């Protein structure tokens, strides 16, 4: 609850930091400080579960951890951005302010109790992101991505709002907390209720880029500045998967048989489309875009097997996926800036050619992040896949599991393309990394391995 207030306020403050000098040196440390304050304020509610705003926002210890994961990922991204916005067209103060507003939306989504809050959070999250996607004004692809994301995203939120309205019409309530009218689903008009659920799901599945609502993903991931691609892939995914969890598990537990079918279809499509399409991509950001579609499929697998461990499993999955994605895109940020093609950073897979010779440490970071994304033991990615597998198989969906396994084997091919490239020989010069970027990249790699060796450390928080 408190970080929502803190970040709304500090977001405005950040805008003022760039008022005199858009490139002021205070913006980055200021934003880091604000995020740290938000992180600490988050724990003000620790062990004091309750609701705010007339039962519209719920705070529990588990929510606090998810929100901390979101704020921490933002912190890592901000640290990673040091030295990025130095060209004349950049407006770092606005970017950081928009990031903070976007996080406010993400936090609302992760703790909403009322469908209105869900809509509000989604809009706050999205509108800031539409702007950030197009923030590199000289990049045509960025402009295209921004427009595409905005148009399709508006439709999706529109559909979500439509669904919310139908649910309200059928039940007379926005409230999804346990024991309410909505959860018991005592309604006058069943058909509106079910159509409402479907529409709400579509809006959220669009944001998490589950197939068949994934068409925007590749273009937007590729066009957006890499830092904001990472933002979309990590923070947005975490926020949306937890809002889905709240919606489905808290809101509609008795309609499980209905929505589980939809989720299963989306899982199957996401796994197949995401993995097969990723194989034929050459742009690393497009590869990660399709990988994020398949990862969404894995995350949704946890929802099919609702148990008391599902929440923890999802939190572990989000944390682990966030760490690996930040590492992978962080390496891309550093390497592509040092390897220009036609005057722009090269973002194709071959940018990693010879990375083991150019900067072995970065190559190890890349290797471990790819191992984690593909779910090889010793990395947190293995456990995260294992946990969602136990959820899916707990309800007897063996075919989902077999499909996921086949697709995981396929995914090795594209996850290892940058690694294979990194082993090549090259004449390119060595790469230097900034201190903060080193700190972030080594930190997330260490955490990935630590969670891979001792997953109990994270699970003990719940």
């Amino acid at each position, binding site marked *: 609850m408190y970080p929502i207030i803190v970040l709304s306020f500090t977001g405005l403050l950040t805008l003022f930091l760039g008022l005199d000098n858009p490139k002021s040196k205070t913006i980055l440390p200021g934003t880091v400080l604000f995020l740290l304050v938000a992180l600490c304020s988050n724990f003000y509610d620790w062990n004091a579960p309750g609701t705010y705003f007339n039962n519209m926002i719920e705070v529990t210890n588990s929510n606090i951890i998810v929100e901390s994961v979101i704020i921490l990922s933002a912190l890592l991204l901000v640290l990673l951005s040091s030295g990025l916005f130095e060209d004349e067209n950049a407006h770092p103060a606005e970017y950081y302010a928009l990031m903070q507003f976007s996080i406010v939306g993400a936090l609302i989504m992760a703790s909403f109790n009322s469908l209105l809050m869900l809509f509000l959070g989604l809009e706050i999250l999205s509108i800031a992101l539409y702007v950030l996607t197009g923030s590199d004004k000289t990049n045509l692809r960025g402009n295209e991505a921004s427009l595409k994301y905005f148009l399709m995203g508006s439709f999706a939120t529109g559909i979500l709002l439509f669904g919310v309205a139908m649910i309200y019409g059928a039940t007379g309530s926005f409230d999804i907390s346990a024991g309410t009218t909505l959860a018991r689903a005592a309604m006058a008009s069943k058909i509106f209720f079910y159509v409402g659920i479907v529409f709400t799901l579509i809006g959220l599945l669009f944001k998490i880029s589950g197939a068949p609502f994934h068409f925007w993903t590749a273009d937007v991931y590729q066009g957006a500045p890499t830092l904001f691609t990472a933002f979309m892939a990590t923070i947005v995914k975490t926020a949306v998967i937890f809002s889905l969890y709240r919606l489905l598990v808290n809101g509609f537990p008795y309609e499980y048989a209905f929505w589980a079918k939809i989720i299963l279809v989306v899982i199957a499509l996401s796994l197949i489309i995401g993995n097969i399409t990723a194989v034929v991509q050459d742009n690393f950001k497009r590869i990660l875009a399709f990988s994020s579609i398949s990862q969404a499929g894995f995350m949704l697998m946890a929802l099919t097997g609702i148990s008391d461990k599902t929440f923890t499993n999802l939190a572990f999955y989000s944390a682990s996926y966030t760490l690996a994605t930040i590492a992978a895109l962080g390496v891309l940020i550093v390497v592509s800036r040092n390897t220009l093609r036609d005057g722009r950073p090269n973002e194709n897979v071959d940018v990693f050619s010879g990375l083991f010779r150019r900067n072995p440490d970065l190559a190890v970071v890349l290797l471990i992040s790819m191992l984690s994304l593909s779910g090889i033991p*010793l990395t947190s990615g293995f456990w995260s896949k294992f946990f969602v597998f136990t959820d899916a198989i707990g309800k007897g969906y063996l075919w989902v599991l077999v499909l996921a*396994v086949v697709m995981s084997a396929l995914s090795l091919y594209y996850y290892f393309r940058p690694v294979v490239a990194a082993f090549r020989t090259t004449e390119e010069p060595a790469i230097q990394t900034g201190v903060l970027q080193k700190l972030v990249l080594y930190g997330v790699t260490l955490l990935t391995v630590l969670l891979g060796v001792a997953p109990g450390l994270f699970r003990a928080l719940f």
Partner: protein
Amino acid sequence: MLTLILFLLPLISGIFLVWNKSNGLAKTTTVLVSLAQIALFIYTASVFRADASALDYSLDWLSDFKVSFHLGIDGLSLVMTGLTVVISGLILFATKDLSYGNISRLLGLILITEAALIGVFAAKDAFLFYFFFELALVPVYLMANLWGGDGIARITLKMFIYTVFGSLLMLVSFVVLYLFAQTSELADLAKIPVNLRPGLNNLLFWGFFIAFAVKSPLFPFHGWLPDAYSKSPTPATMLLSGLLSKMGIYGILRILIPLAPAGTANFSGLVIYFCIVGLIYGSVIAIQQFHIKRLIAYSSFAHMGLMAAAALTLSPSGIQGSVFQMVAHGFSAVGLFYVAKIIYDKTGSRSLADLGGMSQRAPRLAVLFMIILLGSVGLPLTNGFVGEFLMLRAIFDFQHILGITAVISIILAAVYLLRLYQKTMFGPVTSFTENIEDIGVKELVVLVPIALVIIITGVFPNCLLELSSGFAQTLPLIK
């Protein structure tokens, strides 16, 4: 606790060597760690004789899933950890004097592989087993890529995809059993299959079997093997053929038979057919090879088929034979690949067409090569004979026609291995072999122990057979 030290010592020293840059320090550490490991293993064996349960080590790993870090040693594990410790020691001794760049990092990766293998062979928890099973591949993958020749990246990627696909199927089988047992202790999982539907039992069998068949590899899952063995740097090849391939057979004995007994009973006949096909197929291809490493790679593939077939006959002599042969093949495969590397370093060629007459210039190499080779062929008084005799008898008892077919492979093995010997050691001296010198102390330190083990365990096989017979009694379905 002792088991844990046996596992942690190579792991920690390996991680240290990966970061370390000094070559001298790396070589000293390697020698000390290998000798310490062997000493530790001998002590472990003596503790095992007194009280095997003293070697159990258990720690909560993931308490809400009842997954524990549980290491323990029984007869089979003792044989396999012993093999790992000694073979890795030999590989380390061989590697430290080879002319690779960044030798410290290479030695470190070998040590990490050793730790992972000890983990595999001592794991008593299903997920711990899976964890190490996958982990063992990662350092070998890195070794192959960083020290291998051009085009190695695609080859190792193929190997990686093959094995990870297999392992993921194994993971699914484990997860299914785990959901019924609600714990991942192997001993507890073994109680589950009796109550399962036959269909599920069969699926479990294939999930496990494909994982181990890819790892060994067995026909028809061997697509990754020839290129991976021949293009990887020699230390990686020695690890792959000497130790990693044994994880497949070990898995069949430790996981497949106890955890999918009904499926094993249903399909073992079919699988044995495929193994025998692979055995003959590998041998025939080996006869036609001119590239030394490819020849040994196919010979290794053929031998793995025989071991798997014997283990799946589910008879005590078959299981004892395959355990014994795992040890014998571990030594002879490492020996053969090392000799191939020596020949390459001395002559600059790996093609049989270029070589010949080396016995005149290098008599010591010729003698040791002959002993290792005869061990691989299975001549009486070498350890290859004991293993092959037990295995062939088991297969013959299982089905006469299969036994007879399998025996042909012995003749084929003699053909391709003696051809290898003749084309390298005998015949006229070529321009490649004119100016070579005989092997020195560095090579003898590795080859003499291998030759000694081949002869000693060939003459006195009982010490190993005792351990494996104890294990064979504990398996279900044994006739």
